[in-house]
């Protein structure tokens, strides 16, 4: 008896899911007017394609464009606030691919989601186009994408044929020391940006986005350029000097010997969004001055 009840419950649940999916499809046809974005990169894309006025809630890490600061915050990757999201009565929620629980909850509430995962440089452009279609800004999205493509092409044209410096792309390190150095491997948008800017990743053979590099591997791989990416700015002067000084211990590394250790800072470097062309241009300026 109990078993039969469970089956009935399950069938009802399935029926609900089917209904939800139907709603999902029909919703997708009309342009969403109340979008909640849990991914800063996607928020930037929405604003860049003119869907900014449709955004009613953003993640706790959203900083750009400045107008997002006045929008309600709904948590982030690990702690999305489902209640707040629902209270905003969204008709589209942009989630990160790993937020499976949130996606399930949204499906239960018949709210369609757009599930995104970080990928390479191409993936940024594909995502902008998809968001354009989903939000009814196809032309703006196409214009934005071709603008970005043109700028990246211009960079590629400028650096073509030049010697590609073997570069250590650092995105995390314990301040003032050479401990816990995390660098880019052979995949991911930062690595793609580096390649577009005319560099070669020294950890290209490791097919991962992030690699913990020991001082030994850095000495062996002997990068010609060290490029440190930080989202927060480092004021020039003593602060910057002491950060650069940390590398001096590895003085056989060509990048250190030839004083080619650079900091490229700012959120446009760490957010895989529409400002990616800025990032490529800034990297290229450093690699091929």
């Amino acid at each position, binding site marked *: 008896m109990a078993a039969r009840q469970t089956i009935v419950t399950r069938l009802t649940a399935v029926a609900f899911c089917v209904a939800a999916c139907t709603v999902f499809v029909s919703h997708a046809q009309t342009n969403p007017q109340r979008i909640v974005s849990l991914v800063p990169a996607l928020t930037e894309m929405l604003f860049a394609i003119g869907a900014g006025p449709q955004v009613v809630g953003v993640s706790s*890490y959203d900083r750009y464009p400045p107008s997002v600061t006045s929008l309600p915050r709904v948590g*982030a*990757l*690990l*702690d999305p606030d489902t209640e707040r999201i629902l209270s905003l009565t969204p008709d589209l929620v942009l989630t990160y691919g790993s937020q499976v629980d949130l996606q399930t909850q949204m499906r239960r509430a018949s709210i369609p989601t757009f599930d995104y995962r970080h990928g390479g440089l191409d993936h940024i452009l594909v995502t902008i186009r998809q968001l354009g279609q989903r939000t009814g800004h196809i032309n703006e999205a196409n214009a934005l994408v071709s603008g970005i493509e043109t700028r990246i092409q211009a960079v590629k044209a400028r650096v073509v044929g030049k010697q590609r410096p073997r570069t250590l792309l650092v995105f*995390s390190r*314990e*301040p*003032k*020391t*050479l*401990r*816990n150095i995390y660098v880019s491997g052979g995949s991911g948008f930062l690595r793609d940006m580096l390649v577009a800017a005319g560099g070669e990743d020294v*950890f290209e053979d*490791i097919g991962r986005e992030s*690699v*913990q*590099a*020991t*001082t*030994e*591997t850095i*000495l*062996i*791989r*002997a990068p010609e350029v060290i490029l440190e990416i930080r989202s927060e700015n480092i004021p020039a002067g003593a602060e910057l000097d*002491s950060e650069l000084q*940390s590398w001096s*211990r*590895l*003085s*056989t590394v060509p990048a250190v*010997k030839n004083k080619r250790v650079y900091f490229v800072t700012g959120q446009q470097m760490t957010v895989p969004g529409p400002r990616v062309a800025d990032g490529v241009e800034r990297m290229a300026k450093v690699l091929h001055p």
Partner: protein
Amino acid sequence: MMNIRRRIAMVVLAFLAFAIAVIVVAPMVGSTSISLSKAFGRSVDWNENVDAQIFFVARLPRVLSGALVGAALAAAGVVLQALLRNPLATPFTLGVSAGAALGAMVAIAIGLDVGWFGVSSVPIASFAGSLVAIGIVYALATSQRRGLSTNVLLLAGVTLNSFFSALILFVQYVSDFTQSVRAVRWLMGDLDVGGYSSIVAALPMLLAAFGVFAFLPRTLNLLTLGEDVAAARGVDVMSAQRWAFFSASLATGAAVSLGGPIGFIGIVVPHLVRLMIGSDHRIVLPAAALFGAAFTVLCDLTARTIMAPLELPVGIITALIGGPFFLWLLVKRS
């Protein structure tokens, strides 16, 4: 009497030889082979000598910090197991490492970017955290009656551990994603200290603790028989316990601030050594310190070579190697 002294000397010398052999060989081995003659030769300028920099900048600091951390944690484990008369005690039982971890987490989370002489804020904050934990546990253990209650010490330590762990989780939860990743990585232990300054900074504390350890073995032997027996044999129990507690805690705090909370050394190494050579602390304490040093250096050697150029956190290796090895020895003995 002569016999025992001789036995102590023989065993300790054997462990010393093993530890020295490991410490000497470890920096020569790595993901790439280097030429020792080039590394030690003066013919090539330092700024051109890759082999020398691999040896002196990348490997030697790692090996030295591994040896110090391993010796400190293993010896602290022996002392605390004797003090608490509990074979399950570890250097991390009394909340010292949790305090150290909390300090490190806070430094990472608030992005405390100060550093002195090449030592970053994280080890400094973690050492400060361990001192706070030591202070709290000691105050609790001595508040009840005259003297140090090892029961209260144990319970207070375990409770403080849970309390600090909750605070650690809280700090991680409110900090942003990259900081959380860094914090989790810190908890796995890391000996790639990238220079000598952090070793030099931890050295005074470690040496002070080892200095106290040198006077402890006889007292520990009596303490393991019970406080009353020890008192009857003329041991000033309270003072002995205090010395044992502070020295073991200091060693733990300094070791954790240097290499992170590398698990398993503090419990496995003392028991391994006891299974090999008996339970006389005059032998166990120095032997465990030496074996802890060698064991940690070997684990770190595995961590940096087994998946090269990728690196495994050393804390994973100590548990993966130490656990089965310990169980094997346990089964073989019984």
